[in-house]
Protein backbone atom coordinates (compact mmCIF):
# COMPACT_ATOMS: atom_id res chain seq x y z
CA UNK A 1 0.00 0.00 0.00
CA UNK A 2 2.81 2.34 0.99
CA UNK A 3 4.73 1.60 -2.19
CA UNK A 4 1.59 2.22 -4.22
CA UNK A 5 1.09 5.64 -2.61
CA UNK A 6 4.72 6.59 -3.18
CA UNK A 7 4.36 5.59 -6.82
CA UNK A 8 1.22 7.67 -7.23
CA UNK A 9 2.74 10.72 -5.62
CA UNK A 10 5.86 10.55 -7.75
CA UNK A 11 4.32 9.30 -11.00
CA UNK A 12 5.13 12.51 -12.92
CA UNK A 13 8.75 12.51 -11.78
CA UNK A 14 9.14 8.82 -12.64
CA UNK A 15 7.69 9.40 -16.11
CA UNK A 16 10.04 12.37 -16.52
CA UNK A 17 13.11 10.40 -15.52
CA UNK A 18 12.16 7.54 -17.85
CA UNK A 19 11.79 10.06 -20.69
CA UNK A 20 15.23 11.48 -19.90
CA UNK A 21 16.73 7.97 -19.94
CA UNK A 22 15.20 7.48 -23.40
CA UNK A 23 16.84 10.72 -24.51
CA UNK A 24 20.24 9.90 -23.06
CA UNK A 25 20.53 6.21 -24.04
CA UNK A 26 21.90 6.87 -27.57
CA UNK A 27 24.59 9.19 -26.18
CA UNK A 28 25.65 6.44 -23.78
CA UNK A 29 25.71 3.94 -26.68
CA UNK A 30 27.82 6.29 -28.83
CA UNK A 31 30.38 6.71 -26.04
CA UNK A 32 30.37 2.97 -25.24
CA UNK A 33 30.98 1.98 -28.86
CA UNK A 34 33.95 4.36 -29.10
CA UNK A 35 35.71 1.74 -26.94
CA UNK A 36 34.54 -1.19 -29.08
CA UNK A 37 36.96 -3.34 -31.03
CA UNK A 38 34.86 -4.46 -34.03
CA UNK A 39 36.07 -7.39 -36.09
CA UNK A 40 34.56 -6.35 -39.43
CA UNK A 41 33.86 -2.98 -41.00
CA UNK A 42 30.63 -2.46 -39.09
CA UNK A 43 30.57 -1.10 -35.56
CA UNK A 44 27.11 -2.34 -34.57
CA UNK A 45 27.92 -5.33 -32.37
CA UNK A 46 29.87 -5.24 -29.12
CA UNK A 47 33.08 -7.31 -29.54
CA UNK A 48 35.62 -6.23 -26.94
CA UNK A 49 37.07 -3.29 -25.06
CA UNK A 50 39.94 -1.30 -26.53
CA UNK A 51 41.31 2.23 -26.20
CA UNK A 52 43.22 2.06 -29.47
CA UNK A 53 40.85 4.41 -31.31
CA UNK A 54 41.04 6.96 -28.52
CA UNK A 55 44.81 6.84 -28.90
CA UNK A 56 44.53 7.76 -32.59
CA UNK A 57 41.32 9.78 -33.01
CA UNK A 58 42.59 11.69 -36.07
CA UNK A 59 44.13 8.73 -37.89
CA UNK A 60 41.67 8.89 -40.82
CA UNK A 61 42.62 11.84 -43.04
CA UNK A 62 39.28 12.24 -44.85
CA UNK A 63 37.43 12.25 -41.54
CA UNK A 64 39.75 14.85 -40.00
CA UNK A 65 39.53 17.00 -43.15
CA UNK A 66 35.73 16.81 -43.08
CA UNK A 67 35.73 17.84 -39.42
CA UNK A 68 37.96 20.83 -40.17
CA UNK A 69 35.69 21.90 -43.07
CA UNK A 70 32.71 21.71 -40.71
CA UNK A 71 34.43 23.77 -38.02
CA UNK A 72 35.50 26.42 -40.53
CA UNK A 73 32.01 26.53 -42.05
CA UNK A 74 30.37 26.79 -38.62
CA UNK A 75 32.75 29.59 -37.61
CA UNK A 76 31.96 31.77 -40.65
CA UNK A 77 28.25 30.91 -40.40
CA UNK A 78 28.20 32.05 -36.78
CA UNK A 79 29.85 35.37 -37.64
CA UNK A 80 27.65 36.08 -40.68
CA UNK A 81 24.34 34.98 -39.17
CA UNK A 82 24.99 36.75 -35.87
CA UNK A 83 25.70 40.10 -37.54
CA UNK A 84 22.70 39.91 -39.91
CA UNK A 85 20.35 38.56 -37.24
CA UNK A 86 21.37 41.02 -34.50
CA UNK A 87 20.76 44.01 -36.80
CA UNK A 88 17.31 42.66 -37.70
CA UNK A 89 16.47 42.05 -34.04
CA UNK A 90 17.43 45.62 -33.11
CA UNK A 91 15.26 47.03 -35.91
CA UNK A 92 12.27 44.86 -34.90
CA UNK A 93 12.39 45.66 -31.20
CA UNK A 94 13.41 49.31 -31.31
CA UNK A 95 11.55 50.77 -34.25
CA UNK A 96 8.01 51.07 -35.49
CA UNK A 97 8.05 51.07 -39.28
CA UNK A 98 6.01 50.20 -42.32
CA UNK A 99 6.44 46.55 -43.33
CA UNK A 100 7.20 45.25 -39.84
CA UNK A 101 4.73 42.35 -40.09
CA UNK A 102 6.11 41.34 -43.48
CA UNK A 103 9.63 41.35 -42.04
CA UNK A 104 8.45 39.17 -39.15
CA UNK A 105 6.82 36.75 -41.55
CA UNK A 106 9.95 36.50 -43.67
CA UNK A 107 11.91 35.52 -40.57
CA UNK A 108 9.44 32.94 -39.31
CA UNK A 109 8.63 31.10 -42.55
CA UNK A 110 12.12 29.59 -43.07
CA UNK A 111 11.83 28.00 -39.62
CA UNK A 112 8.47 26.48 -40.57
CA UNK A 113 9.84 25.04 -43.81
CA UNK A 114 11.02 21.43 -43.86
CA UNK A 115 14.78 21.24 -44.39
CA UNK A 116 14.36 19.04 -47.44
CA UNK A 117 12.36 21.82 -49.14
CA UNK A 118 14.97 24.48 -48.27
CA UNK A 119 17.74 22.24 -49.60
CA UNK A 120 15.82 21.42 -52.78
CA UNK A 121 14.87 25.03 -53.55
CA UNK A 122 18.43 26.26 -53.04
CA UNK A 123 19.74 23.55 -55.33
CA UNK A 124 17.13 24.49 -57.96
CA UNK A 125 18.29 28.10 -57.65
CA UNK A 126 22.01 27.30 -57.88
CA UNK A 127 21.48 24.95 -60.84
CA UNK A 128 19.29 27.34 -62.84
CA UNK A 129 21.37 30.43 -62.14
CA UNK A 130 24.75 28.84 -62.74
CA UNK A 131 26.60 31.67 -60.95
CA UNK A 132 27.63 29.93 -57.76
CA UNK A 133 29.82 26.86 -57.91
CA UNK A 134 28.48 24.16 -55.58
CA UNK A 135 30.90 23.78 -52.67
CA UNK A 136 32.03 25.70 -49.62
CA UNK A 137 30.50 29.00 -50.78
CA UNK A 138 27.04 27.54 -51.44
CA UNK A 139 27.20 25.74 -48.08
CA UNK A 140 28.05 29.02 -46.34
CA UNK A 141 25.20 30.84 -48.13
CA UNK A 142 22.73 28.12 -47.10
CA UNK A 143 23.95 27.87 -43.49
CA UNK A 144 23.80 31.63 -42.91
CA UNK A 145 20.32 31.65 -44.47
CA UNK A 146 18.83 29.06 -42.11
CA UNK A 147 20.65 30.39 -39.02
CA UNK A 148 19.57 34.04 -39.29
CA UNK A 149 16.01 33.41 -38.04
CA UNK A 150 17.26 31.65 -34.91
CA UNK A 151 19.67 34.50 -34.16
CA UNK A 152 16.81 37.02 -34.48
CA UNK A 153 14.64 35.05 -32.00
CA UNK A 154 17.43 34.75 -29.41
CA UNK A 155 18.70 38.35 -29.59
CA UNK A 156 15.16 39.77 -29.71
CA UNK A 157 14.22 38.05 -26.45
CA UNK A 158 17.25 39.67 -24.80
CA UNK A 159 16.41 43.11 -26.22
CA UNK A 160 12.79 42.99 -25.05
CA UNK A 161 13.88 42.84 -21.41
CA UNK A 162 16.26 45.77 -21.90
CA UNK A 163 16.02 48.92 -19.78
CA UNK A 164 15.97 51.78 -22.28
CA UNK A 165 16.65 54.32 -19.53
CA UNK A 166 20.27 53.17 -19.42
CA UNK A 167 20.74 54.42 -22.97
CA UNK A 168 18.95 57.66 -22.24
CA UNK A 169 21.25 58.15 -19.27
CA UNK A 170 24.29 57.69 -21.50
CA UNK A 171 22.94 60.21 -23.99
CA UNK A 172 22.16 62.67 -21.21
CA UNK A 173 25.80 62.36 -20.21
CA UNK A 174 26.80 63.46 -23.71
CA UNK A 175 27.48 60.16 -25.48
CA UNK A 176 26.57 60.10 -29.17
CA UNK A 177 24.52 57.29 -30.75
CA UNK A 178 27.51 55.17 -31.72
CA UNK A 179 29.24 55.48 -28.35
CA UNK A 180 25.98 54.65 -26.58
CA UNK A 181 25.60 51.52 -28.71
CA UNK A 182 29.21 50.45 -28.17
CA UNK A 183 29.50 51.19 -24.45
CA UNK A 184 25.97 50.53 -23.18
CA UNK A 185 23.76 48.58 -25.59
CA UNK A 186 26.25 46.03 -26.88
CA UNK A 187 27.64 44.96 -23.46
CA UNK A 188 24.10 44.55 -22.14
CA UNK A 189 22.84 42.43 -25.03
CA UNK A 190 26.19 40.59 -25.28
CA UNK A 191 24.96 37.41 -23.51
CA UNK A 192 22.13 37.14 -26.06
CA UNK A 193 24.48 37.77 -28.98
CA UNK A 194 26.96 35.19 -27.70
CA UNK A 195 24.30 32.52 -27.22
CA UNK A 196 22.94 33.31 -30.69
CA UNK A 197 26.43 32.86 -32.16
CA UNK A 198 26.88 29.56 -30.31
CA UNK A 199 23.47 28.39 -31.49
CA UNK A 200 24.24 29.15 -35.14
CA UNK A 201 27.62 27.44 -34.78
CA UNK A 202 25.84 24.35 -33.43
CA UNK A 203 23.14 24.44 -36.13
CA UNK A 204 25.76 24.68 -38.84
CA UNK A 205 28.08 21.94 -37.59
CA UNK A 206 25.12 19.58 -37.17
CA UNK A 207 23.37 20.22 -40.47
CA UNK A 208 23.08 17.30 -42.83
CA UNK A 209 19.93 17.64 -44.95
CA UNK A 210 20.46 21.10 -46.47
CA UNK A 211 24.20 20.47 -46.86
CA UNK A 212 23.52 17.21 -48.65
CA UNK A 213 21.77 19.16 -51.42
CA UNK A 214 24.27 22.00 -51.79
CA UNK A 215 27.71 20.63 -51.01
CA UNK A 216 28.96 19.74 -54.50
CA UNK A 217 32.12 17.77 -53.80
CA UNK A 218 32.84 19.43 -50.45
CA UNK A 219 32.57 17.00 -47.53
CA UNK A 220 31.48 18.12 -44.05
CA UNK A 221 31.54 15.98 -40.90
CA UNK A 222 27.87 14.86 -41.21
CA UNK A 223 28.30 14.26 -44.95
CA UNK A 224 31.35 12.09 -44.26
CA UNK A 225 29.32 9.99 -41.84
CA UNK A 226 26.52 9.60 -44.36
CA UNK A 227 28.95 8.53 -47.06
CA UNK A 228 30.77 6.14 -44.73
CA UNK A 229 27.54 4.46 -43.69
CA UNK A 230 27.55 2.15 -46.72
CA UNK A 231 31.10 0.92 -46.26
CA UNK A 232 31.02 0.92 -42.44
CA UNK A 233 31.51 3.86 -40.11
CA UNK A 234 34.96 3.90 -38.50
CA UNK A 235 35.15 3.84 -34.69
CA UNK A 236 36.90 7.23 -34.80
CA UNK A 237 33.54 8.83 -35.62
CA UNK A 238 32.30 7.69 -32.21
CA UNK A 239 35.49 8.92 -30.57
CA UNK A 240 35.19 12.38 -32.13
CA UNK A 241 31.45 12.57 -31.38
CA UNK A 242 32.15 11.68 -27.74
CA UNK A 243 34.93 14.28 -27.57
CA UNK A 244 32.67 17.02 -29.02
CA UNK A 245 29.97 16.04 -26.55
CA UNK A 246 32.36 16.11 -23.59
CA UNK A 247 33.79 19.51 -24.55
CA UNK A 248 30.30 21.04 -24.90
CA UNK A 249 29.09 19.52 -21.62
CA UNK A 250 32.11 20.83 -19.72
CA UNK A 251 31.69 24.30 -21.24
CA UNK A 252 27.97 24.32 -20.32
CA UNK A 253 28.68 23.15 -16.76
CA UNK A 254 31.25 25.92 -16.29
CA UNK A 255 28.67 28.47 -17.45
CA UNK A 256 25.99 27.04 -15.10
CA UNK A 257 28.34 27.00 -12.10
CA UNK A 258 29.46 30.56 -12.77
CA UNK A 259 25.86 31.71 -13.06
CA UNK A 260 25.08 30.06 -9.70
CA UNK A 261 27.99 31.86 -8.10
CA UNK A 262 27.03 35.16 -9.68
CA UNK A 263 23.45 34.72 -8.44
CA UNK A 264 24.64 34.06 -4.91
CA UNK A 265 27.12 36.91 -4.93
CA UNK A 266 24.88 39.50 -6.55
CA UNK A 267 22.49 41.72 -4.65
CA UNK A 268 19.29 40.20 -3.36
CA UNK A 269 16.01 41.27 -4.86
CA UNK A 270 14.41 44.32 -3.24
CA UNK A 271 11.51 42.30 -1.81
CA UNK A 272 13.93 39.92 -0.12
CA UNK A 273 15.79 42.81 1.37
CA UNK A 274 12.52 44.28 2.60
CA UNK A 275 11.74 40.98 4.30
CA UNK A 276 15.08 40.89 6.05
CA UNK A 277 15.64 44.37 7.38
CA UNK A 278 18.35 43.19 9.76
CA UNK A 279 20.69 42.30 6.90
CA UNK A 280 23.04 44.86 5.52
CA UNK A 281 22.85 45.73 1.84
CA UNK A 282 25.35 43.71 -0.16
CA UNK A 283 27.37 45.89 -2.49
Amino acid at each position, binding site marked *: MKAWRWLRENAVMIAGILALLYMLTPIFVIALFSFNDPTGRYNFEWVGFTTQYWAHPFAITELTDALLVSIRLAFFTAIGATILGTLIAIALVRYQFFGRRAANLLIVIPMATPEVVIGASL*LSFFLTLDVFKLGFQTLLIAHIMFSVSFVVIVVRSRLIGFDRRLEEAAQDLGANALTTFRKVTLPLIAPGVVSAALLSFALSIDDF*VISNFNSGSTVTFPLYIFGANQRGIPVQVNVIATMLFAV*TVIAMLVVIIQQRRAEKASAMRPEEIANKPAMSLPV
Partner: protein
Amino acid sequence: MTSVRRRLVPYGLLAPGLIWLIVFFVIPMYYMGELSLKTGTIETGYQMSWAFSNYTDAISQYSTQFFRAFYYAGVATVLCLLIGYPLAYAIAFKAGRWKNLMLFAVVAPFFTTYLIRTIAWKTILDDSSPAVSVLKTLHLVPQDGRVLATSAAVIAGLTYNFLPFMVLPLFAALERLDRRLLEAGKDLYASATQTFLKVTLPITMPGIVAGVLLTFIPAAGDYVNATFLGGTNQAMIGNVIQSKYLVVRDYSEAAALSFTLMAIILVALIIYIKFAGTGALMGDEEEAE
Protein backbone atom coordinates in the same frame (compact mmCIF):
# COMPACT_ATOMS: atom_id res chain seq x y z
CA MET B 1 19.50 63.54 -36.43
CA THR B 2 16.84 64.62 -38.88
CA SER B 3 13.53 62.82 -38.78
CA VAL B 4 13.88 61.47 -42.32
CA ARG B 5 17.21 59.93 -41.49
CA ARG B 6 15.80 58.57 -38.28
CA ARG B 7 12.94 56.96 -40.14
CA LEU B 8 15.35 55.24 -42.51
CA VAL B 9 17.41 53.70 -39.71
CA PRO B 10 15.29 50.53 -39.23
CA TYR B 11 15.42 49.81 -42.97
CA GLY B 12 19.20 50.16 -42.92
CA LEU B 13 19.41 47.69 -40.05
CA LEU B 14 17.04 45.24 -41.72
CA ALA B 15 18.44 45.44 -45.22
CA PRO B 16 21.47 43.12 -45.10
CA GLY B 17 19.66 40.27 -43.36
CA LEU B 18 16.37 40.57 -45.19
CA ILE B 19 18.09 40.83 -48.57
CA TRP B 20 19.95 37.62 -47.70
CA LEU B 21 16.64 35.90 -46.87
CA ILE B 22 14.95 37.22 -50.01
CA VAL B 23 17.80 36.23 -52.35
CA PHE B 24 18.50 32.85 -50.77
CA PHE B 25 15.07 31.80 -49.52
CA VAL B 26 12.25 33.54 -51.41
CA ILE B 27 13.84 33.62 -54.87
CA PRO B 28 15.00 29.96 -54.69
CA MET B 29 11.39 29.02 -53.88
CA TYR B 30 10.36 30.83 -57.06
CA TYR B 31 13.03 29.01 -59.06
CA MET B 32 11.86 25.70 -57.65
CA GLY B 33 8.29 26.55 -58.62
CA GLU B 34 9.41 27.42 -62.13
CA LEU B 35 11.50 24.25 -62.42
CA SER B 36 8.50 22.17 -61.37
CA LEU B 37 6.58 23.35 -64.47
CA LYS B 38 9.35 22.66 -66.96
CA THR B 39 9.95 19.55 -68.99
CA GLY B 40 13.22 18.09 -70.14
CA THR B 41 16.16 16.06 -68.93
CA ILE B 42 19.51 17.01 -67.51
CA GLU B 43 21.19 16.26 -70.87
CA THR B 44 18.83 18.19 -73.13
CA GLY B 45 18.14 21.03 -70.73
CA TYR B 46 14.79 22.22 -69.38
CA GLN B 47 12.13 24.19 -71.25
CA MET B 48 9.21 26.03 -69.75
CA SER B 49 6.05 24.25 -70.83
CA TRP B 50 3.65 24.88 -67.93
CA ALA B 51 3.72 21.15 -67.34
CA PHE B 52 1.17 20.85 -64.54
CA SER B 53 1.21 17.14 -65.31
CA ASN B 54 4.43 17.04 -63.28
CA TYR B 55 2.25 17.65 -60.25
CA THR B 56 -0.51 15.16 -61.04
CA ASP B 57 2.08 12.52 -62.00
CA ALA B 58 4.18 13.08 -58.92
CA ILE B 59 1.26 13.08 -56.51
CA SER B 60 -0.45 10.02 -57.95
CA GLN B 61 2.80 8.08 -58.17
CA TYR B 62 4.02 8.94 -54.67
CA SER B 63 0.80 9.30 -52.71
CA THR B 64 1.88 6.34 -50.55
CA GLN B 65 5.07 8.11 -49.47
CA PHE B 66 3.19 11.36 -48.85
CA PHE B 67 0.63 9.58 -46.73
CA ARG B 68 3.34 7.64 -44.91
CA ALA B 69 5.31 10.82 -44.11
CA PHE B 70 2.28 12.51 -42.55
CA TYR B 71 1.23 9.32 -40.76
CA TYR B 72 4.70 8.71 -39.25
CA ALA B 73 5.12 12.38 -38.35
CA GLY B 74 1.63 12.45 -36.81
CA VAL B 75 2.23 9.37 -34.64
CA ALA B 76 5.67 10.66 -33.62
CA THR B 77 4.17 14.06 -32.67
CA VAL B 78 1.49 12.43 -30.50
CA LEU B 79 4.14 10.24 -28.82
CA CYS B 80 6.36 13.29 -28.26
CA LEU B 81 3.44 15.09 -26.59
CA LEU B 82 2.63 12.08 -24.38
CA ILE B 83 6.28 11.63 -23.35
CA GLY B 84 7.18 15.32 -23.33
CA TYR B 85 4.32 16.77 -21.27
CA PRO B 86 5.02 14.76 -18.09
CA LEU B 87 8.74 15.46 -18.52
CA ALA B 88 8.22 19.22 -18.96
CA TYR B 89 5.78 19.18 -16.02
CA ALA B 90 8.26 17.32 -13.82
CA ILE B 91 11.02 19.81 -14.67
CA ALA B 92 8.83 22.87 -14.12
CA PHE B 93 7.07 21.80 -10.90
CA LYS B 94 8.78 18.83 -9.27
CA ALA B 95 12.49 19.05 -10.01
CA GLY B 96 13.44 21.68 -7.40
CA ARG B 97 17.19 21.98 -7.28
CA TRP B 98 17.57 19.45 -10.10
CA LYS B 99 15.73 21.70 -12.56
CA ASN B 100 18.84 22.99 -14.35
CA LEU B 101 20.36 19.54 -14.57
CA MET B 102 17.19 18.04 -16.05
CA LEU B 103 16.86 20.88 -18.56
CA PHE B 104 20.46 20.32 -19.47
CA ALA B 105 19.74 16.61 -20.07
CA VAL B 106 16.90 17.60 -22.43
CA VAL B 107 19.22 19.60 -24.69
CA ALA B 108 22.19 17.23 -24.27
CA PRO B 109 21.28 15.19 -27.39
CA PHE B 110 21.86 18.36 -29.45
CA PHE B 111 25.55 18.17 -28.53
CA THR B 112 26.02 15.07 -30.66
CA THR B 113 25.45 15.10 -34.39
CA TYR B 114 21.92 14.26 -35.56
CA LEU B 115 23.19 11.54 -37.90
CA ILE B 116 25.27 9.87 -35.19
CA ARG B 117 22.33 9.87 -32.79
CA THR B 118 20.18 8.18 -35.41
CA ILE B 119 22.91 5.64 -36.15
CA ALA B 120 23.12 4.95 -32.41
CA TRP B 121 19.49 3.81 -32.61
CA LYS B 122 20.53 1.48 -35.41
CA THR B 123 23.04 -0.03 -32.96
CA ILE B 124 20.41 -0.27 -30.21
CA LEU B 125 17.80 -1.88 -32.49
CA ASP B 126 20.27 -4.10 -34.38
CA ASP B 127 19.22 -7.75 -34.77
CA SER B 128 22.03 -8.88 -32.47
CA SER B 129 21.50 -6.22 -29.79
CA PRO B 130 20.55 -7.08 -26.19
CA ALA B 131 17.57 -4.71 -26.37
CA VAL B 132 16.01 -6.71 -29.19
CA SER B 133 16.56 -10.05 -27.43
CA VAL B 134 14.81 -8.64 -24.36
CA LEU B 135 11.87 -7.64 -26.55
CA LYS B 136 11.86 -11.16 -28.01
CA THR B 137 11.94 -12.77 -24.55
CA LEU B 138 8.96 -10.62 -23.59
CA HIS B 139 7.26 -11.75 -26.83
CA LEU B 140 6.83 -8.16 -27.92
CA VAL B 141 8.73 -9.07 -31.07
CA PRO B 142 8.31 -12.48 -32.74
CA GLN B 143 11.29 -14.85 -32.39
CA ASP B 144 12.28 -14.58 -36.07
CA GLY B 145 11.24 -10.91 -36.31
CA ARG B 146 13.28 -7.75 -36.59
CA VAL B 147 12.88 -4.27 -35.17
CA LEU B 148 15.06 -2.50 -37.71
CA ALA B 149 13.46 -1.85 -41.09
CA THR B 150 9.96 -1.58 -39.60
CA SER B 151 7.60 1.37 -39.28
CA ALA B 152 8.00 1.15 -35.49
CA ALA B 153 11.76 1.75 -35.76
CA VAL B 154 11.31 4.82 -37.98
CA ILE B 155 8.60 6.27 -35.72
CA ALA B 156 10.76 5.61 -32.63
CA GLY B 157 13.66 7.40 -34.30
CA LEU B 158 11.51 10.40 -35.26
CA THR B 159 10.04 10.56 -31.76
CA TYR B 160 13.48 10.47 -30.23
CA ASN B 161 15.04 13.06 -32.52
CA PHE B 162 12.29 15.67 -32.22
CA LEU B 163 11.39 15.21 -28.53
CA PRO B 164 13.47 18.22 -27.33
CA PHE B 165 11.53 20.46 -29.75
CA MET B 166 8.36 19.41 -27.93
CA VAL B 167 9.73 19.57 -24.38
CA LEU B 168 11.30 23.05 -24.55
CA PRO B 169 8.18 25.07 -25.56
CA LEU B 170 6.05 23.00 -23.15
CA PHE B 171 8.50 23.75 -20.35
CA ALA B 172 8.51 27.47 -21.21
CA ALA B 173 4.69 27.55 -21.08
CA LEU B 174 4.49 25.56 -17.84
CA GLU B 175 7.09 27.65 -16.10
CA ARG B 176 5.24 30.88 -16.89
CA LEU B 177 2.06 29.41 -15.40
CA ASP B 178 0.96 31.38 -12.35
CA ARG B 179 0.95 28.83 -9.53
CA ARG B 180 -1.70 30.77 -7.63
CA LEU B 181 -4.18 29.65 -10.28
CA LEU B 182 -3.50 26.02 -9.34
CA GLU B 183 -4.02 26.87 -5.66
CA ALA B 184 -7.23 28.67 -6.54
CA GLY B 185 -8.44 25.53 -8.32
CA LYS B 186 -7.66 23.48 -5.24
CA ASP B 187 -9.36 25.97 -2.93
CA LEU B 188 -12.48 25.68 -5.04
CA TYR B 189 -12.44 21.91 -4.42
CA ALA B 190 -11.30 20.86 -7.88
CA SER B 191 -9.59 17.46 -7.94
CA ALA B 192 -6.05 17.24 -9.27
CA THR B 193 -7.40 15.93 -12.58
CA GLN B 194 -9.96 18.72 -12.85
CA THR B 195 -7.36 21.38 -12.07
CA PHE B 196 -5.13 19.93 -14.76
CA LEU B 197 -7.89 19.75 -17.39
CA LYS B 198 -9.52 23.11 -16.62
CA VAL B 199 -6.52 25.24 -15.68
CA THR B 200 -3.12 23.83 -16.59
CA LEU B 201 -3.98 22.38 -19.99
CA PRO B 202 -5.82 25.44 -21.43
CA ILE B 203 -3.20 27.90 -20.17
CA THR B 204 -0.32 25.89 -21.62
CA MET B 205 -2.08 25.49 -25.00
CA PRO B 206 0.25 27.96 -26.77
CA GLY B 207 3.19 25.78 -25.67
CA ILE B 208 1.42 22.67 -26.98
CA VAL B 209 0.74 24.35 -30.34
CA ALA B 210 4.36 25.48 -30.66
CA GLY B 211 5.64 22.04 -29.67
CA VAL B 212 3.33 20.23 -32.11
CA LEU B 213 4.39 22.46 -35.02
CA LEU B 214 8.10 22.30 -34.18
CA THR B 215 7.87 18.49 -34.05
CA PHE B 216 5.48 17.73 -36.88
CA ILE B 217 6.96 19.96 -39.60
CA PRO B 218 10.55 18.71 -39.49
CA ALA B 219 9.37 15.12 -38.92
CA ALA B 220 7.13 15.18 -42.02
CA GLY B 221 10.03 16.27 -44.22
CA ASP B 222 12.65 14.04 -42.61
CA TYR B 223 14.42 11.32 -44.54
CA VAL B 224 17.34 10.54 -42.23
CA ASN B 225 15.38 8.27 -39.90
CA ALA B 226 13.74 6.37 -42.75
CA THR B 227 17.13 5.97 -44.45
CA PHE B 228 18.92 4.52 -41.43
CA LEU B 229 16.16 2.80 -39.46
CA GLY B 230 13.67 1.85 -42.17
CA GLY B 231 13.70 -0.50 -45.12
CA THR B 232 12.38 0.02 -48.65
CA ASN B 233 8.80 -0.11 -47.38
CA GLN B 234 9.35 2.76 -44.97
CA ALA B 235 10.43 5.41 -47.51
CA MET B 236 8.90 8.82 -46.72
CA ILE B 237 8.33 11.69 -49.14
CA GLY B 238 11.65 13.24 -48.05
CA ASN B 239 13.44 10.12 -49.28
CA VAL B 240 11.77 10.43 -52.68
CA ILE B 241 12.64 14.14 -53.04
CA GLN B 242 16.21 13.48 -51.93
CA SER B 243 16.81 10.62 -54.34
CA LYS B 244 15.07 12.39 -57.26
CA TYR B 245 17.26 15.44 -56.78
CA LEU B 246 20.57 13.82 -55.92
CA VAL B 247 20.50 10.31 -57.40
CA VAL B 248 18.01 10.08 -60.29
CA ARG B 249 18.34 13.79 -61.16
CA ASP B 250 14.77 14.08 -62.33
CA TYR B 251 14.68 17.71 -61.31
CA SER B 252 11.28 18.94 -62.46
CA GLU B 253 9.33 16.12 -60.86
CA ALA B 254 11.45 16.46 -57.71
CA ALA B 255 10.68 20.17 -57.61
CA ALA B 256 6.96 19.43 -58.05
CA LEU B 257 7.05 16.98 -55.12
CA SER B 258 8.95 19.42 -52.96
CA PHE B 259 6.57 22.26 -53.77
CA THR B 260 3.58 20.06 -52.97
CA LEU B 261 5.08 19.12 -49.58
CA MET B 262 5.64 22.79 -48.78
CA ALA B 263 2.09 23.71 -49.84
CA ILE B 264 0.48 20.93 -47.78
CA ILE B 265 2.49 21.93 -44.71
CA LEU B 266 1.66 25.63 -45.12
CA VAL B 267 -2.05 24.89 -45.47
CA ALA B 268 -1.96 22.56 -42.45
CA LEU B 269 -0.06 25.22 -40.51
CA ILE B 270 -2.60 27.95 -41.26
CA ILE B 271 -5.56 25.70 -40.42
CA TYR B 272 -3.91 24.50 -37.23
CA ILE B 273 -3.03 27.98 -36.03
CA LYS B 274 -6.52 29.26 -36.84
CA PHE B 275 -7.99 26.32 -34.98
CA ALA B 276 -5.66 26.54 -31.99
CA GLY B 277 -5.88 30.32 -32.05
CA THR B 278 -2.31 31.41 -31.54
CA GLY B 279 0.64 32.68 -33.51
CA ALA B 280 2.73 30.13 -31.66
CA LEU B 281 5.75 29.96 -33.92
CA MET B 282 6.38 33.67 -33.56
CA GLY B 283 6.39 33.64 -29.77
CA ASP B 284 4.00 35.44 -27.46
CA GLU B 285 5.13 38.90 -28.39
CA GLU B 286 3.56 38.61 -31.85
CA GLU B 287 0.12 38.07 -30.44
CA ALA B 288 0.22 41.45 -28.78
CA GLU B 289 0.61 43.17 -32.12
